[in-house]
């Protein structure tokens, strides 16, 4: 059974992880992540992005710094890096493709 919303959510999480991996070692503000995700899903919204970032934080893959000014700053944790680099098994919830290289 194909569920487009689920696919979109989970792919978005994977793309967020990829973005933050490219933004290492500094990390990135949510604006940059959103701009990147919008390069893939043109209709991605800030709220959607924050939801997925929050989910990734709950999974301890991402560190979030919620600044008093309202901006969020995201950075990969050690586990996040391992997931992106295929060192760890990825539990369901993130559409990580199989390693093909």
């Amino acid at each position, binding site marked *: 059974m194909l569920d487009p919303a689920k696919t979109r959510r989970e792919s978005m999480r*994977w*793309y967020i992880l*990829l*973005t933050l991996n*490219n*933004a290492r070692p*500094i990390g*990135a503000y949510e604006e*940059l992540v959103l*701009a*990147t995700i919008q*390069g*893939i899903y043109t209709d991605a919204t800030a709220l959607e992005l924050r939801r997925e970032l929050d989910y990734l934080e709950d999974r301890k893959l991402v560190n979030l710094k919620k600044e008093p000014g309202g901006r969020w700053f995201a950075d990969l944790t050690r586990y996040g890096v391992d997931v992106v680099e295929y060192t760890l098994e990825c539990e369901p919830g993130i559409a990580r*493709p*199989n390693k*093909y290289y």
Partner: protein
Amino acid sequence: MSSVTIEFWPLLSGIGLLLVSFLGFVFAAGKILLSQTDKRLDQRFVALETIRAETAKNWEDKFTTLMISFREEAKGWQNLEKDFLKYQNVISREYVRREDYIRNQTIIEAKLDGVAMRIENLQLKGLREC
């Protein structure tokens, strides 16, 4: 009581002589005084002129060095400006903005993932069709 008689003309001439000699003395004294004052004033003016000339020369020297230093400074700023423009050019040509790099790289990776997925699906479908 004997009386002294002085005749009028000798008296007049005596007084006149006295007056003339006195006036001559005053005139000569005045002249000497004036000439001395004049000399002093001249000396003073010469001294003042020397001082003025020296001061003017000093100022001129100072202004000249100041102008030279200004010119050198201006040259330095010009060089700095040129260097800055050069670097601006180099930066726009040789460096990629961090944000742009992250975005492009991620999108390329995402596209690669998509292609890999498609190939995988094709392989699976092909297997099923076989």
